[in-house]
Protein backbone atom coordinates (compact mmCIF):
# COMPACT_ATOMS: atom_id res chain seq x y z
CA UNK A 1 0.00 0.00 0.00
CA UNK A 2 1.40 3.37 -0.95
CA UNK A 3 0.64 6.13 1.48
CA UNK A 4 1.03 9.87 1.26
CA UNK A 5 1.35 11.77 4.52
CA UNK A 6 0.50 15.46 4.59
CA UNK A 7 2.75 17.14 7.10
CA UNK A 8 2.82 20.69 8.35
CA UNK A 9 5.72 22.43 9.98
CA UNK A 10 4.44 24.46 12.91
CA UNK A 11 6.28 26.86 15.20
CA UNK A 12 7.83 25.27 18.28
CA UNK A 13 6.32 28.02 20.33
CA UNK A 14 2.87 29.54 20.04
CA UNK A 15 4.35 32.52 21.85
CA UNK A 16 3.23 35.07 19.31
CA UNK A 17 2.31 38.66 19.92
CA UNK A 18 0.88 41.41 17.79
CA UNK A 19 2.58 44.70 17.01
CA UNK A 20 0.09 47.24 18.36
CA UNK A 21 0.67 49.62 15.46
CA UNK A 22 1.17 47.52 12.35
CA UNK A 23 -0.87 44.56 13.69
CA UNK A 24 1.83 42.30 12.27
CA UNK A 25 2.59 39.08 14.11
CA UNK A 26 5.78 39.01 16.15
CA UNK A 27 7.23 35.59 16.79
CA UNK A 28 9.71 35.06 19.58
CA UNK A 29 11.46 32.32 17.63
CA UNK A 30 11.34 31.03 14.10
CA UNK A 31 12.11 27.47 15.11
CA UNK A 32 9.77 24.95 13.54
CA UNK A 33 8.83 21.37 14.25
CA UNK A 34 6.63 18.65 12.77
CA UNK A 35 3.05 19.24 13.86
CA UNK A 36 2.51 16.84 16.80
CA UNK A 37 -0.54 15.04 15.36
CA UNK A 38 1.31 14.57 12.06
CA UNK A 39 3.73 12.31 13.91
CA UNK A 40 0.75 10.08 14.66
CA UNK A 41 -0.20 10.17 10.98
CA UNK A 42 3.34 9.18 10.05
CA UNK A 43 3.25 6.33 12.56
CA UNK A 44 -0.08 5.05 11.20
CA UNK A 45 1.37 5.24 7.68
CA UNK A 46 4.55 3.39 8.64
CA UNK A 47 2.60 0.60 10.32
CA UNK A 48 0.43 0.10 7.23
CA UNK A 49 3.38 0.36 4.91
CA UNK A 50 5.20 -2.34 6.84
CA UNK A 51 2.12 -4.54 6.92
CA UNK A 52 1.54 -4.21 3.18
CA UNK A 53 5.06 -3.74 1.86
CA UNK A 54 4.47 -0.36 0.33
CA UNK A 55 6.03 3.04 0.70
CA UNK A 56 5.30 6.21 2.61
CA UNK A 57 5.89 9.59 1.03
CA UNK A 58 5.63 12.71 3.11
CA UNK A 59 4.37 15.95 1.55
CA UNK A 60 4.56 19.43 2.91
CA UNK A 61 3.90 22.87 1.57
CA UNK A 62 6.02 25.65 2.98
CA UNK A 63 8.91 27.99 2.46
CA UNK A 64 12.46 26.90 1.70
CA UNK A 65 13.88 25.65 4.98
CA UNK A 66 11.02 23.26 5.58
CA UNK A 67 13.34 20.56 4.25
CA UNK A 68 14.54 20.11 7.82
CA UNK A 69 11.14 18.79 8.89
CA UNK A 70 10.93 16.53 5.83
CA UNK A 71 14.34 15.06 6.57
CA UNK A 72 13.18 14.43 10.11
CA UNK A 73 10.08 12.65 8.78
CA UNK A 74 12.34 10.49 6.62
CA UNK A 75 14.56 9.92 9.64
CA UNK A 76 11.50 8.56 11.40
CA UNK A 77 10.91 6.15 8.53
CA UNK A 78 9.18 7.77 5.54
CA UNK A 79 10.79 6.66 2.27
CA UNK A 80 10.62 9.84 0.26
CA UNK A 81 9.48 13.39 0.66
CA UNK A 82 8.10 16.21 -1.42
CA UNK A 83 8.47 19.88 -0.65
CA UNK A 84 5.90 22.02 -2.42
CA UNK A 85 7.28 25.50 -2.37
CA UNK A 86 6.80 28.62 -4.39
CA UNK A 87 6.38 32.23 -3.49
CA UNK A 88 3.12 32.26 -5.42
CA UNK A 89 1.62 29.62 -3.08
CA UNK A 90 2.16 31.79 -0.01
CA UNK A 91 -0.73 33.39 1.84
CA UNK A 92 -3.29 30.83 0.77
CA UNK A 93 -6.24 29.89 2.97
CA UNK A 94 -7.31 26.29 3.49
CA UNK A 95 -9.01 26.11 0.08
CA UNK A 96 -5.99 27.38 -1.86
CA UNK A 97 -3.63 25.21 0.21
CA UNK A 98 -5.68 22.06 -0.32
CA UNK A 99 -5.82 22.64 -4.08
CA UNK A 100 -2.04 22.86 -4.29
CA UNK A 101 -1.53 19.81 -2.09
CA UNK A 102 -3.99 17.76 -4.14
CA UNK A 103 -2.19 18.76 -7.33
CA UNK A 104 1.19 17.88 -5.78
CA UNK A 105 -0.02 14.45 -4.73
CA UNK A 106 -1.42 13.76 -8.20
CA UNK A 107 1.81 14.95 -9.75
CA UNK A 108 3.78 12.43 -7.69
CA UNK A 109 1.58 9.48 -8.57
CA UNK A 110 -1.07 7.12 -7.30
CA UNK A 111 -1.66 6.54 -3.61
CA UNK A 112 -3.96 4.16 -1.80
CA UNK A 113 -4.23 6.29 1.28
CA UNK A 114 -3.55 9.90 2.17
CA UNK A 115 -3.11 10.70 5.85
CA UNK A 116 -2.65 13.90 7.79
CA UNK A 117 -2.62 14.90 11.44
CA UNK A 118 -6.06 15.82 12.76
CA UNK A 119 -5.43 19.42 13.82
CA UNK A 120 -2.38 21.62 13.55
CA UNK A 121 -0.92 23.17 16.67
CA UNK A 122 -0.96 26.68 15.19
CA UNK A 123 -3.98 27.19 12.92
CA UNK A 124 -6.00 24.20 14.15
CA UNK A 125 -8.60 24.41 11.37
CA UNK A 126 -8.80 20.65 10.77
CA UNK A 127 -10.03 21.38 7.25
CA UNK A 128 -7.21 20.82 4.79
CA UNK A 129 -7.42 17.00 4.77
CA UNK A 130 -11.15 17.01 3.97
CA UNK A 131 -10.64 19.62 1.27
CA UNK A 132 -7.84 17.60 -0.32
CA UNK A 133 -10.25 14.64 -0.34
CA UNK A 134 -12.82 16.75 -2.15
CA UNK A 135 -10.32 17.87 -4.79
CA UNK A 136 -9.22 14.26 -5.28
CA UNK A 137 -12.79 12.99 -5.28
CA UNK A 138 -11.89 10.56 -2.51
CA UNK A 139 -13.80 9.59 0.66
CA UNK A 140 -12.64 11.23 3.87
CA UNK A 141 -12.77 10.18 7.50
CA UNK A 142 -11.65 12.87 9.92
CA UNK A 143 -10.08 12.58 13.35
CA UNK A 144 -9.56 8.84 13.51
CA UNK A 145 -7.85 6.70 16.15
CA UNK A 146 -6.54 3.96 13.92
CA UNK A 147 -6.80 2.02 10.66
CA UNK A 148 -7.46 -1.68 10.18
CA UNK A 149 -6.32 -3.42 7.04
CA UNK A 150 -7.33 -6.93 6.04
CA UNK A 151 -5.29 -8.35 3.19
CA UNK A 152 -8.23 -10.40 1.89
CA UNK A 153 -9.90 -7.10 0.97
CA UNK A 154 -7.28 -4.90 -0.61
CA UNK A 155 -9.84 -2.41 -1.91
CA UNK A 156 -10.87 -1.17 1.52
CA UNK A 157 -9.59 -0.20 4.92
CA UNK A 158 -11.56 0.31 8.12
CA UNK A 159 -11.07 3.57 9.96
CA UNK A 160 -11.66 3.63 13.69
CA UNK A 161 -13.22 6.83 14.91
CA UNK A 162 -14.17 7.78 18.43
CA UNK A 163 -17.36 9.79 18.62
CA UNK A 164 -19.54 10.56 21.62
CA UNK A 165 -18.31 7.62 23.76
CA UNK A 166 -18.73 5.24 20.83
CA UNK A 167 -16.13 3.73 18.57
CA UNK A 168 -17.27 3.73 14.95
CA UNK A 169 -15.65 1.38 12.50
CA UNK A 170 -16.00 2.92 9.07
CA UNK A 171 -15.24 0.87 6.00
CA UNK A 172 -13.74 3.02 3.31
CA UNK A 173 -13.05 2.55 -0.36
CA UNK A 174 -9.51 3.31 -1.47
CA UNK A 175 -8.07 5.78 -2.39
CA UNK A 176 -9.15 7.44 0.84
CA UNK A 177 -8.08 10.46 2.87
CA UNK A 178 -8.03 10.42 6.67
CA UNK A 179 -6.84 12.61 9.49
CA UNK A 180 -5.24 10.95 12.50
CA UNK A 181 -5.73 12.17 16.08
CA UNK A 182 -2.87 13.23 18.34
CA UNK A 183 -2.07 10.51 20.87
CA UNK A 184 -3.83 7.77 18.88
CA UNK A 185 -0.65 5.74 18.58
CA UNK A 186 2.89 5.85 19.88
CA UNK A 187 5.07 7.49 17.23
CA UNK A 188 8.46 5.90 16.76
CA UNK A 189 11.51 8.10 17.02
CA UNK A 190 14.24 8.87 14.57
CA UNK A 191 17.67 7.75 15.73
CA UNK A 192 21.03 9.39 15.14
CA UNK A 193 21.76 6.75 12.52
CA UNK A 194 18.42 7.04 10.74
CA UNK A 195 18.75 10.82 10.72
CA UNK A 196 22.09 10.56 8.97
CA UNK A 197 20.61 8.13 6.46
CA UNK A 198 17.60 10.39 5.88
CA UNK A 199 19.85 13.00 4.31
CA UNK A 200 20.37 10.64 1.36
CA UNK A 201 16.69 9.72 0.84
CA UNK A 202 14.88 11.33 -2.13
CA UNK A 203 13.57 14.82 -1.44
CA UNK A 204 11.62 16.17 -4.40
CA UNK A 205 10.89 19.85 -4.76
CA UNK A 206 7.79 20.99 -6.65
CA UNK A 207 7.42 24.63 -7.58
CA UNK A 208 4.62 25.97 -9.70
CA UNK A 209 6.74 25.20 -12.71
CA UNK A 210 6.05 21.54 -11.98
CA UNK A 211 2.46 21.96 -10.80
CA UNK A 212 1.34 24.47 -13.44
CA UNK A 213 -1.51 25.94 -11.42
CA UNK A 214 -3.43 28.99 -12.55
CA UNK A 215 -2.80 32.19 -10.62
CA UNK A 216 -6.47 32.48 -9.65
CA UNK A 217 -6.31 29.10 -7.87
CA UNK A 218 -3.34 29.72 -5.62
CA UNK A 219 -2.00 31.99 -2.91
CA UNK A 220 -3.94 35.06 -1.88
CA UNK A 221 -5.82 35.35 -5.15
CA UNK A 222 -6.93 31.72 -4.92
CA UNK A 223 -8.27 32.21 -1.40
CA UNK A 224 -11.95 33.05 -0.90
CA UNK A 225 -11.15 34.29 2.61
CA UNK A 226 -8.58 36.82 3.77
CA UNK A 227 -7.09 37.80 7.11
CA UNK A 228 -7.85 41.45 7.62
CA UNK A 229 -6.68 42.04 11.16
CA UNK A 230 -4.94 40.50 14.11
CA UNK A 231 -5.04 41.43 17.74
CA UNK A 232 -4.13 40.15 21.18
CA UNK A 233 -6.77 38.83 23.56
CA UNK A 234 -7.84 41.35 26.16
CA UNK A 235 -7.44 39.20 29.22
CA UNK A 236 -3.94 38.76 30.53
CA UNK A 237 -2.17 35.46 30.53
CA UNK A 238 -2.94 34.76 34.14
CA UNK A 239 -5.30 32.18 35.52
CA UNK A 240 -8.78 33.25 36.54
CA UNK A 241 -8.89 32.48 40.25
CA UNK A 242 -11.74 30.64 41.94
CA UNK A 243 -13.19 31.99 45.14
CA UNK A 244 -15.53 30.57 47.73
CA UNK A 245 -15.71 27.57 50.00
CA UNK A 246 -14.05 24.31 48.97
CA UNK A 247 -17.54 23.00 48.15
CA UNK A 248 -18.29 25.95 45.89
CA UNK A 249 -14.91 25.72 44.18
CA UNK A 250 -15.28 21.97 43.70
CA UNK A 251 -18.68 22.55 42.10
CA UNK A 252 -17.23 25.12 39.74
CA UNK A 253 -14.35 22.79 38.86
CA UNK A 254 -16.81 20.01 38.10
CA UNK A 255 -18.84 22.30 35.89
CA UNK A 256 -15.75 23.32 33.89
CA UNK A 257 -14.59 19.75 33.44
CA UNK A 258 -18.03 18.40 32.53
CA UNK A 259 -18.50 21.23 30.07
CA UNK A 260 -15.17 20.56 28.35
CA UNK A 261 -15.79 16.82 28.29
CA UNK A 262 -19.19 17.37 26.73
CA UNK A 263 -17.67 19.04 23.71
CA UNK A 264 -16.80 16.93 20.74
Amino acid at each position, binding site marked *: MNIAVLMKQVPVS*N*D*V*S*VDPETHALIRSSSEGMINPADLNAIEAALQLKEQTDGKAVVFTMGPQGTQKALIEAMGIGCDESVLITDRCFAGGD*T*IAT*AKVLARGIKKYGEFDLILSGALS*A*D*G*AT*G*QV*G*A*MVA*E*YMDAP*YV*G*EIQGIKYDETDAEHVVAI*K*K*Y*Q*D*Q*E*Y*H*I*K*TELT*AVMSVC*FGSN*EPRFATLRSMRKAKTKPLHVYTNEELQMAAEDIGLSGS*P*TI*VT*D*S*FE*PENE*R*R*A*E*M*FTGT*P*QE*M*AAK*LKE*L*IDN*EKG*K*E
Partner: protein
Amino acid sequence: MANGICIFAEYYNGKIEPVTAELITAAHFIKETTGEKIQLIVVAKDCDQLVKQLEPAGADEVYAVETKRDCIFQDDALSSVITDMIRKIEPSSVLIPATPMGRSIFSRVASKLGCGLTADCTEVLTAKREDGTFYIKQNKPSFGENVFVTIETKPGIYPQMMTIRQGVYTAYEGETDAVKVTYLENIEIPASKLEVVEVVPARNDTNSILASETVVVGGRGAEEEEDFALLKAFAEKLDAAIGGTRPLADSGKIPFQNQIGQTGFTIRPRICISIGVSGAIQHTEGIKDTKLFVAINTDENAAIFNVADYGIVGDMKELLEAYLS
Protein backbone atom coordinates in the same frame (compact mmCIF):
# COMPACT_ATOMS: atom_id res chain seq x y z
CA MET B 1 -29.01 37.84 -4.36
CA ALA B 2 -27.71 35.83 -1.44
CA ASN B 3 -29.93 36.30 1.56
CA GLY B 4 -30.38 34.51 4.87
CA ILE B 5 -28.36 33.26 7.80
CA CYS B 6 -28.20 29.54 7.47
CA ILE B 7 -27.35 27.21 10.36
CA PHE B 8 -26.37 23.57 10.10
CA ALA B 9 -28.48 21.68 12.62
CA GLU B 10 -26.21 18.91 13.84
CA TYR B 11 -27.79 15.94 15.53
CA TYR B 12 -26.74 12.63 17.01
CA ASN B 13 -28.90 9.63 17.89
CA GLY B 14 -32.08 11.43 16.92
CA LYS B 15 -31.37 14.49 19.06
CA ILE B 16 -30.52 17.95 17.82
CA GLU B 17 -27.19 18.94 19.42
CA PRO B 18 -27.44 21.75 22.01
CA VAL B 19 -24.83 23.76 20.09
CA THR B 20 -27.51 24.51 17.49
CA ALA B 21 -29.25 26.81 19.98
CA GLU B 22 -25.96 28.65 20.53
CA LEU B 23 -25.59 29.25 16.81
CA ILE B 24 -29.16 30.57 16.69
CA THR B 25 -28.12 33.21 19.23
CA ALA B 26 -25.17 34.16 17.02
CA ALA B 27 -27.52 34.35 14.04
CA HIS B 28 -29.88 36.68 15.92
CA PHE B 29 -26.98 39.08 16.52
CA ILE B 30 -26.40 39.17 12.75
CA LYS B 31 -30.12 39.47 12.06
CA GLU B 32 -30.36 42.56 14.29
CA THR B 33 -28.22 44.39 11.74
CA THR B 34 -29.05 42.74 8.44
CA GLY B 35 -32.67 41.78 9.02
CA GLU B 36 -32.12 38.50 7.22
CA LYS B 37 -34.09 35.35 7.93
CA ILE B 38 -32.57 32.64 10.08
CA GLN B 39 -32.65 29.28 8.33
CA LEU B 40 -31.95 25.87 9.77
CA ILE B 41 -30.91 22.98 7.58
CA VAL B 42 -31.17 19.33 8.49
CA VAL B 43 -30.46 16.15 6.54
CA ALA B 44 -31.57 12.86 8.08
CA LYS B 45 -33.30 9.58 7.59
CA ASP B 46 -35.92 10.17 10.27
CA CYS B 47 -36.31 13.78 9.47
CA ASP B 48 -39.75 14.58 10.89
CA GLN B 49 -38.97 14.31 14.54
CA LEU B 50 -35.76 16.36 14.09
CA VAL B 51 -37.77 19.04 12.32
CA LYS B 52 -40.21 18.97 15.26
CA GLN B 53 -37.31 19.69 17.59
CA LEU B 54 -36.19 22.55 15.38
CA GLU B 55 -39.57 24.27 14.98
CA PRO B 56 -39.56 26.08 18.35
CA ALA B 57 -35.81 26.76 18.29
CA GLY B 58 -35.96 30.43 17.27
CA ALA B 59 -35.41 30.33 13.50
CA ASP B 60 -37.59 31.68 10.70
CA GLU B 61 -37.27 28.76 8.34
CA VAL B 62 -36.36 25.10 8.44
CA TYR B 63 -35.14 23.31 5.34
CA ALA B 64 -35.00 19.52 5.43
CA VAL B 65 -33.91 16.70 3.19
CA GLU B 66 -35.07 13.25 4.09
CA THR B 67 -32.62 10.52 3.08
CA LYS B 68 -33.45 6.89 2.37
CA ARG B 69 -30.65 5.59 4.53
CA ASP B 70 -28.82 6.50 7.68
CA CYS B 71 -25.83 8.44 6.42
CA ILE B 72 -23.78 9.18 9.55
CA PHE B 73 -20.12 9.88 8.65
CA GLN B 74 -20.85 9.60 4.92
CA ASP B 75 -19.31 12.99 4.31
CA ASP B 76 -18.95 12.47 0.57
CA ALA B 77 -22.71 11.94 0.17
CA LEU B 78 -23.82 14.37 2.87
CA SER B 79 -21.67 17.19 1.55
CA SER B 80 -23.22 16.72 -1.86
CA VAL B 81 -26.76 16.98 -0.45
CA ILE B 82 -25.92 20.02 1.64
CA THR B 83 -24.22 21.74 -1.29
CA ASP B 84 -27.40 21.28 -3.33
CA MET B 85 -29.48 22.66 -0.46
CA ILE B 86 -27.30 25.75 -0.09
CA ARG B 87 -27.41 26.36 -3.82
CA LYS B 88 -31.21 26.33 -3.57
CA ILE B 89 -31.52 28.41 -0.41
CA GLU B 90 -28.81 30.88 -1.42
CA PRO B 91 -28.01 32.20 2.06
CA SER B 92 -25.49 35.01 2.54
CA SER B 93 -23.89 33.20 5.45
CA VAL B 94 -23.69 29.69 6.88
CA LEU B 95 -22.93 29.05 10.54
CA ILE B 96 -21.66 25.60 11.45
CA PRO B 97 -20.74 24.18 14.83
CA ALA B 98 -16.95 23.76 15.11
CA THR B 99 -17.30 20.05 15.77
CA PRO B 100 -15.61 17.09 14.07
CA MET B 101 -18.76 16.55 12.06
CA GLY B 102 -19.20 20.20 11.17
CA ARG B 103 -15.68 20.83 9.98
CA SER B 104 -15.42 17.54 8.15
CA ILE B 105 -18.65 17.85 6.11
CA PHE B 106 -18.40 21.56 5.47
CA SER B 107 -14.76 21.48 4.37
CA ARG B 108 -16.07 19.49 1.42
CA VAL B 109 -19.09 21.77 0.98
CA ALA B 110 -16.82 24.82 0.97
CA SER B 111 -14.60 23.21 -1.65
CA LYS B 112 -17.58 22.36 -3.83
CA LEU B 113 -18.94 25.89 -3.54
CA GLY B 114 -15.49 27.50 -3.71
CA CYS B 115 -16.56 29.80 -0.88
CA GLY B 116 -13.98 29.16 1.82
CA LEU B 117 -14.54 28.17 5.42
CA THR B 118 -13.33 30.02 8.49
CA ALA B 119 -12.57 27.67 11.36
CA ASP B 120 -13.44 27.87 15.01
CA CYS B 121 -14.75 31.43 15.33
CA THR B 122 -15.20 32.79 18.82
CA GLU B 123 -16.97 35.92 17.66
CA VAL B 124 -18.91 36.94 14.55
CA LEU B 125 -19.57 40.64 14.00
CA THR B 126 -21.61 42.30 11.31
CA ALA B 127 -20.16 45.23 9.39
CA LYS B 128 -21.15 47.28 6.34
CA ARG B 129 -19.14 47.85 3.20
CA GLU B 130 -19.06 51.13 1.29
CA ASP B 131 -21.48 49.76 -1.27
CA GLY B 132 -24.02 49.14 1.47
CA THR B 133 -23.69 45.37 1.62
CA PHE B 134 -23.21 43.66 4.93
CA TYR B 135 -20.39 41.30 5.72
CA ILE B 136 -19.31 39.27 8.69
CA LYS B 137 -16.05 39.77 10.55
CA GLN B 138 -15.06 36.29 11.62
CA ASN B 139 -12.78 36.41 14.65
CA LYS B 140 -10.86 33.29 15.55
CA PRO B 141 -7.96 32.39 17.83
CA SER B 142 -4.65 31.36 16.37
CA PHE B 143 -1.37 30.08 17.82
CA GLY B 144 -3.15 28.53 20.77
CA GLU B 145 -5.07 31.46 22.15
CA ASN B 146 -2.20 33.90 21.94
CA VAL B 147 -3.54 35.98 19.08
CA PHE B 148 -6.87 36.46 17.41
CA VAL B 149 -7.30 37.13 13.72
CA THR B 150 -10.20 38.64 11.84
CA ILE B 151 -11.10 36.77 8.68
CA GLU B 152 -13.44 38.05 6.00
CA THR B 153 -14.88 36.33 3.00
CA LYS B 154 -13.91 38.31 -0.07
CA PRO B 155 -16.60 40.66 -1.44
CA GLY B 156 -18.86 38.97 -3.93
CA ILE B 157 -18.22 35.47 -2.62
CA TYR B 158 -21.24 33.85 -0.96
CA PRO B 159 -22.10 32.27 1.29
CA GLN B 160 -19.73 33.45 3.99
CA MET B 161 -19.13 30.16 5.74
CA MET B 162 -17.72 29.68 9.18
CA THR B 163 -17.58 27.18 12.01
CA ILE B 164 -18.29 28.59 15.46
CA ARG B 165 -16.77 27.24 18.64
CA GLN B 166 -19.07 25.58 21.13
CA GLY B 167 -19.76 27.42 24.34
CA VAL B 168 -19.00 30.97 23.20
CA TYR B 169 -22.64 31.92 22.62
CA THR B 170 -25.36 31.07 25.11
CA ALA B 171 -28.29 28.99 23.93
CA TYR B 172 -31.14 30.97 22.35
CA GLU B 173 -34.08 31.37 24.67
CA GLY B 174 -36.12 34.01 22.85
CA GLU B 175 -39.56 33.76 21.30
CA THR B 176 -40.18 31.88 18.09
CA ASP B 177 -42.44 33.44 15.51
CA ALA B 178 -44.19 31.35 12.90
CA VAL B 179 -41.66 29.03 11.39
CA LYS B 180 -41.83 27.89 7.79
CA VAL B 181 -40.80 24.28 7.14
CA THR B 182 -39.72 23.24 3.65
CA TYR B 183 -38.84 19.73 2.57
CA LEU B 184 -36.57 19.91 -0.44
CA GLU B 185 -37.89 16.96 -2.42
CA ASN B 186 -35.68 16.93 -5.48
CA ILE B 187 -32.40 16.42 -3.73
CA GLU B 188 -31.18 12.84 -3.81
CA ILE B 189 -28.46 11.45 -1.64
CA PRO B 190 -25.77 9.91 -3.83
CA ALA B 191 -23.94 6.66 -3.12
CA SER B 192 -21.14 6.83 -0.57
CA LYS B 193 -17.73 5.21 -0.48
CA LEU B 194 -18.06 5.06 3.31
CA GLU B 195 -20.01 2.64 5.45
CA VAL B 196 -20.25 2.21 9.21
CA VAL B 197 -19.72 -1.49 9.77
CA GLU B 198 -19.51 -1.65 13.54
CA VAL B 199 -20.17 0.46 16.62
CA VAL B 200 -18.72 -0.46 19.99
CA PRO B 201 -18.40 1.49 23.24
CA ALA B 202 -15.19 3.55 23.28
CA ARG B 203 -12.61 3.42 26.02
CA ASN B 204 -10.32 6.21 27.10
CA ASP B 205 -6.74 5.05 27.37
CA THR B 206 -5.82 6.19 30.87
CA ASN B 207 -2.58 4.22 30.96
CA SER B 208 -0.81 6.59 28.65
CA ILE B 209 -0.38 10.23 29.57
CA LEU B 210 0.31 10.93 25.90
CA ALA B 211 -2.91 9.36 24.63
CA SER B 212 -5.33 10.30 27.40
CA GLU B 213 -7.62 13.26 26.81
CA THR B 214 -7.61 14.14 30.48
CA VAL B 215 -4.53 14.17 32.65
CA VAL B 216 -4.18 14.91 36.34
CA VAL B 217 -0.66 16.07 37.16
CA GLY B 218 0.66 15.83 40.70
CA GLY B 219 3.63 17.75 42.03
CA ARG B 220 5.52 17.97 45.29
CA GLY B 221 2.42 19.28 46.98
CA ALA B 222 0.72 15.94 46.37
CA GLU B 223 3.57 13.77 47.54
CA GLU B 224 2.15 12.63 50.90
CA GLU B 225 0.53 9.18 50.82
CA GLU B 226 -2.86 10.49 51.85
CA ASP B 227 -2.82 13.32 49.32
CA PHE B 228 -1.74 11.08 46.51
CA ALA B 229 -4.48 8.57 47.31
CA LEU B 230 -6.98 11.39 47.01
CA LEU B 231 -5.43 12.50 43.72
CA LYS B 232 -5.74 8.94 42.44
CA ALA B 233 -9.40 8.75 43.37
CA PHE B 234 -9.96 12.10 41.67
CA ALA B 235 -8.23 10.91 38.48
CA GLU B 236 -10.29 7.74 38.48
CA LYS B 237 -13.49 9.73 38.75
CA LEU B 238 -12.39 11.88 35.80
CA ASP B 239 -11.29 8.87 33.76
CA ALA B 240 -7.92 10.59 33.60
CA ALA B 241 -4.34 9.43 33.31
CA ILE B 242 -1.98 10.42 36.13
CA GLY B 243 1.19 12.28 35.37
CA GLY B 244 3.57 13.78 37.84
CA THR B 245 6.68 15.82 38.28
CA ARG B 246 9.97 14.25 39.29
CA PRO B 247 9.36 13.89 43.02
CA LEU B 248 6.37 11.61 42.35
CA ALA B 249 8.40 9.49 39.94
CA ASP B 250 11.37 9.37 42.32
CA SER B 251 9.15 8.17 45.15
CA GLY B 252 7.73 5.44 42.93
CA LYS B 253 4.15 6.74 43.06
CA ILE B 254 4.04 7.02 39.29
CA PRO B 255 6.14 5.16 36.73
CA PHE B 256 8.99 7.13 35.18
CA GLN B 257 7.23 7.10 31.83
CA ASN B 258 4.50 9.24 33.36
CA GLN B 259 6.96 11.85 34.56
CA ILE B 260 6.38 15.30 33.11
CA GLY B 261 9.13 17.82 32.58
CA GLN B 262 12.86 17.28 32.08
CA THR B 263 12.36 14.07 30.16
CA GLY B 264 11.98 15.55 26.72
CA PHE B 265 8.36 14.42 26.38
CA THR B 266 5.51 16.87 25.92
CA ILE B 267 1.93 15.93 26.71
CA ARG B 268 -1.03 17.57 24.96
CA PRO B 269 -4.16 16.56 26.82
CA ARG B 270 -7.43 18.36 26.22
CA ILE B 271 -8.01 18.75 29.95
CA CYS B 272 -5.21 19.10 32.47
CA ILE B 273 -5.66 19.51 36.22
CA SER B 274 -2.45 20.13 38.12
CA ILE B 275 -2.33 19.58 41.85
CA GLY B 276 0.52 20.84 43.99
CA VAL B 277 2.71 21.65 40.98
CA SER B 278 4.67 24.84 41.53
CA GLY B 279 5.15 25.47 37.84
CA ALA B 280 8.88 25.34 37.37
CA ILE B 281 9.54 25.87 33.70
CA GLN B 282 10.54 22.27 32.99
CA HIS B 283 7.10 21.11 34.03
CA THR B 284 5.07 23.68 32.20
CA GLU B 285 7.08 23.23 29.01
CA GLY B 286 6.06 19.58 29.18
CA ILE B 287 2.32 20.42 29.04
CA LYS B 288 0.99 22.14 25.94
CA ASP B 289 -2.07 22.85 23.82
CA THR B 290 -4.59 22.18 26.59
CA LYS B 291 -8.16 23.35 26.12
CA LEU B 292 -8.77 23.47 29.86
CA PHE B 293 -5.96 23.82 32.39
CA VAL B 294 -6.84 24.21 36.06
CA ALA B 295 -4.07 24.57 38.64
CA ILE B 296 -4.54 23.84 42.32
CA ASN B 297 -1.82 25.07 44.66
CA THR B 298 -1.48 26.38 48.18
CA ASP B 299 0.92 29.13 47.14
CA GLU B 300 -0.92 31.98 45.47
CA ASN B 301 2.33 33.17 43.88
CA ALA B 302 3.08 29.81 42.27
CA ALA B 303 4.29 30.27 38.71
CA ILE B 304 1.80 27.66 37.48
CA PHE B 305 -0.93 30.31 37.71
CA ASN B 306 0.80 32.15 34.86
CA VAL B 307 0.14 29.29 32.47
CA ALA B 308 -3.15 27.83 33.74
CA ASP B 309 -6.58 29.01 32.58
CA TYR B 310 -8.08 28.74 36.06
CA GLY B 311 -6.45 28.72 39.46
CA ILE B 312 -7.51 27.48 42.84
CA VAL B 313 -5.53 28.58 45.87
CA GLY B 314 -6.14 26.21 48.68
CA ASP B 315 -5.71 22.86 50.30
CA MET B 316 -6.07 20.05 47.79
CA LYS B 317 -7.47 17.79 50.47
CA GLU B 318 -10.54 19.88 51.24
CA LEU B 319 -11.17 20.61 47.60
CA LEU B 320 -10.85 17.07 46.29
CA GLU B 321 -12.88 15.66 49.15
CA ALA B 322 -15.62 18.12 48.28
CA TYR B 323 -15.33 17.17 44.62
CA LEU B 324 -15.50 13.46 45.30
CA SER B 325 -18.54 13.80 47.53
